[in-house]
């Protein structure tokens, strides 16, 4: 046993990169909403990119360290505190038995990922550790964390000498591939969709983000025969407010789809908070594919990492002292 949940946070689950190969049976892929953040956190510990991590949403959890280990975080900054010391996001840190790791409210994003060496050990369902709460499968007992849950690291391990570079994903520009029912929207509607700003409403969760903005009307109607959904499908039901379908989406949907969010911009979108504005930019599927390939290569080839000059170790007096001296 490695970590014990002492406060579960708002919505905390175990996620890997998703459960694929079973959408034809109706299983949502689930998986880390910000796939890039999970991959980067895993890189900091030398894990496989798909190793299961913890996804925290808006407000983080608190853990008691039951066994010495090393942790890494990525994604939104939840002001991680180990005992009373603040630690920046994106930097691996050793934690000693008896310490408390505390996460607060998310800043510069909404989702934070926490990983341990080898990933968190949970039973896989249909080949994935991802939690899908609606069907109660995967992750930790198929549900969000509760007080007292006990988590195990998959392996003993140590940190790499890297940290995640600062990068700015703050703009609200989200690139979109024209969707299945793009032509149900006339030219004025298309122009509006690609020029107006849409706001994230409070109804934004792992299933999808409901947006608010100028009404989008599909003159031939908004209902279509149910068709498989994709990550980032933007469906427009009657009423004209778009919904972006995300990881826990239903695998089939029957509303007109104006577009699909390009994979490369999913991490940026899912880190937005309710009230944030987004603007959609049209790109072709060929452009989106090139961007996606380039981005995956950038992630995998260390494009987001830099050498960590101030490797931190918590709970080791000497290292702590060194860290304090370096801070001055």
């Amino acid at each position, binding site marked *: 046993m490695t970590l014990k949940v002492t406060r579960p946070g708002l919505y905390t689950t175990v996620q890997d990169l998703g459960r*694929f*190969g*079973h*959408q*034809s*049976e*109706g*299983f*949502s892929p689930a998986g880390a909403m910000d796939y890039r953040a999970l991959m980067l956190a895993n890189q900091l510990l030398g894990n496989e990119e798909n190793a299961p991590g913890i996804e925290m949403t808006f407000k983080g959890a608190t853990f008691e360290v039951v066994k010495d280990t090393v942790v890494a975080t990525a994604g939104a900054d939840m002001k991680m505190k180990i005992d009373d010391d603040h630690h920046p996001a994106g930097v691996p840190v050793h934690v000693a038995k008896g310490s408390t790791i505390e996460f607060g409210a998310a800043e510069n994003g909404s989702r934070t990922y926490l990983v341990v060496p080898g990933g968190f050990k949970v039973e896989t*369902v*249909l080949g994935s550790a991802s939690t899908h709460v*609606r*069907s*109660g*499968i995967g992750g930790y007992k198929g549900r969000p964390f509760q007080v007292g849950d006990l988590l195990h690291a998959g392996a003993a391990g140590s940190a790499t000498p890297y940290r995640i570079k600062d990068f700015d994903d703050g703009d609200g520009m989200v690139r979109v*591939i*024209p*969707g*299945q029912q793009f032509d149900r929207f006339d030219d004025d509607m298309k122009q509006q969709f690609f020029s107006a700003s849409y706001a994230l409403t409070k109804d934004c969760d792992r299933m999808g983000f409901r947006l608010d903005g100028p009404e989008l009307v599909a003159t031939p109607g908004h209902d279509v*025969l*149910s*068709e*498989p959904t*994709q*990550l*980032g*499908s933007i469906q427009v039901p009657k009423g004209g407010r778009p919904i972006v379908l995300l990881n826990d989406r*239903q*695998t*089939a949907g029957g509303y007109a*789809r104006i577009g*699909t969010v*390009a*994979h490369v911009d999913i991490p940026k979108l899912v880190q937005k908070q309710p009230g944030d504005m987004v603007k959609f930019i049209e790109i072709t*599927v060929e452009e*989106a*594919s090139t961007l*996606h*390939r380039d981005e*995956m290569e950038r992630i995998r080839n260390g494009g987001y990492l830099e050498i960590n000059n101030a490797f931190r170790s918590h709970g080791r007096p000497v290292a702590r002292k060194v860290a304090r001296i370096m801070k001055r």
Partner: protein
Amino acid sequence: MEIRQFAENALTIYLGDEIDERINRQLVALRHRIDEMEIEGIGEVVLSYTSLIIYFDIFKTDVDALKAAVDQIDETALLEAEVSYRVIEIPVCYGGEYGPDIDSFEENGLSADEVVELHANKEYLVYMLGFMPGFPYLGGLDERLHKARLETPRVRIPPGSVGIGGKQTGMYPFESPGGWHLLGRTPVPLFDENREETILYEAGDRIIYRPIDASEYKEIASRIEAGDYEIQFEVKGGS
């Protein structure tokens, strides 16, 4: 045949624009053809009423080659292809506490017995799965059983419930809210993560509901518990 792409890693093939058994047969045959082609990087193929989606690995699959290969498939030949399917028998205890809405069909001039008569012992085609894991979109419901959904949806429908919503019949593998009229319940788990076939059927298969009484329901439930119940199915079609 219309080949379109709406996502980096997926190709959509449309074979029509309405719910039609013939289109389903073509799609099932097309899925087999794609499986046989053994194109590198193909992940999974997902069927819906009028189309199928091929998911692929953007680092392994040449999408233009995939498009060209699919484009060469003869649509009419798909209709003639002999494709086997399974008929899966689902035992259902109609009425009573399991089917609290069966009597409401009296509004439509049907007694509970007549509802069972019209609903059970006939093959329903599984067009696709979705909404929740293992939820089948079935075709073939008798028109006399069409019934608008409940005005106030139930907060909780128990897993295994069999019901009717509008022109569709189907069943709930998981507990869920919903506005369907509940006719009965099956003791057979429609999702079982420890079973070799987690979900019992796929698009193109057929479902047949066999009426059982409350004591058979309990008997089957305890046999399932003990692990000595075998789900009945028959393979049809093909050559």
